[in-house]
């Protein structure tokens, strides 16, 4: 027995995403955002996408390129305050934005990844965020049914991978990546370093290989990955 090799050319991996797809993107700000995969998605030009990502990055980075190219019809997110284009498109009515509480977005993605239909929470009861969601009574208190999210494709950024798709994330670049890794029908991880099987110790793996379909080796890191100087 040996574990299959999933290293794939970036063009081939991204080409599996069709128009109209729902695409999850890892990352919280810069760390963990798959900038190179996003650039390829822009280059290939798939249209009418639903993007699920914690935030809309900043001007000229990541999600902003997809917004600039008009590929995004809908954005499920927690905060877009650092991206003026996202705010403007939303205000103009040309981008449909659904806001989630951050931990609830994490749980909805994880629920999709865990093959659950929903989680029941009590967050945002006094806010618009819970409006229109089904409610059930449990133990004498009201619960909000937060439905699971899955995606046609999840695009991840890992610090290290092995060829089977086991992943490790650096520092706070972990964030939504391991959750989205479970919730995509097609999971593509870009990695700064790709090791042979056994290169990552079995106890130190953040995302187990069976969740990952394609590993894309990053030849170099663009400026987008660097420290932001404000």
């Amino acid at each position, binding site marked *: 027995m040996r574990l299959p090799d999933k290293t794939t050319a970036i063009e081939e991996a991204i080409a599996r995403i069709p128009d109209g797809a729902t695409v999850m993107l890892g990352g919280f700000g810069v760390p963990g955002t798959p900038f190179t995969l996003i650039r390829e998605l822009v280059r290939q030009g798939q249209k009418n996408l639903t993007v699920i990502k914690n935030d809309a990055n900043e001007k000229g980075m990541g999600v902003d390129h997809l917004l600039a190219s008009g590929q995004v019809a809908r954005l499920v997110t927690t905060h877009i305050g650092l991206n003026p284009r996202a705010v403007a498109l939303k205000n103009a009515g040309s981008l449909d934005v659904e806001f989630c509480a951050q931990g609830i977005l994490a749980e909805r993605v994880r629920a999709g990844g865990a*093959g*659950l239909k929903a989680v029941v929470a009590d967050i945002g009861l006094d806010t618009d965020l819970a409006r229109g969601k089904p409610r059930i009574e449990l133990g004498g208190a009201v619960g909000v049914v937060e439905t699971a999210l899955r995606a046609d494709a999840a695009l991840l950024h890992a610090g290290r991978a092995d060829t*089977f798709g*086991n992943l490790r994330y650096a520092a706070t670049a972990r964030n939504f990546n391991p959750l989205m890794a479970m919730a995509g029908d097609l999971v593509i991880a870009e990695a700064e370093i790709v090791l042979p*099987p056994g290169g*990552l110790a*079995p106890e130190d793996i953040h995302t187990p290989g*069976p*969740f990952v379909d394609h590993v894309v080796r990053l030849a170099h890191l663009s400026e987008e990955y660097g420290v932001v100087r404000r």
Partner: protein
Amino acid sequence: MSDARTRMVARAAREIAPGMVVNLGIGLPSRVVDHLPPRFPVCLHTENGLSGVGPTLPPDSADRNLIDAGGAYVSTVPGSAFFDSAVSFALVRSGRLDLTMLGAFEVSQAGDLANWIIPGRFSPGAGGGIELAQKARRVAVLTMHTDRDGTPKLVADCSMPLTARGCVSRVFTDLAVIDVTPAGFALREVAQGVTPEQVIAATAAPLAVPDGDIVVF
């Protein structure tokens, strides 16, 4: 293991396609791994928290912290990963488990599986069996064709409490390979020295037999 059992297990091993993630149940299914070609690309999963299950080890070389879900001391392979029980079943329920092979008390012609309770005699809890049966992309059963009393295990309707409804795609027995189709059981292959008539006689439900020659395993 008898020749018939060995042949059955070896045949079941050919069900595993390159690149699959596979969970092998306790007992006979766990022996399937012994019949895979060397360097075959497959990832074995065990629900207590390991992808990339390696060969079983004797007590003297065992790691006290490294078992499979049946309690056997196993090993890792290059690329193995450990994870917690929630992640392990996330993998099962979200469709990342391509195939599971399970034992059975009864399989019905509709693909219903009963393998966890014998009323009045045996009800130790299902462990992870229900999720494996219900959520693996493909469920194969590996079992002797009849129990020790000669009672058929392939039946029209299960008499024992179900593990999951309509989950079984294919059954490997010491006598035959049988598919569960929308029309019921269909004979695909017979074991060496076994006739379709013998399989029909040992099956307590209608069994469609193909025209012409039948494959022998």
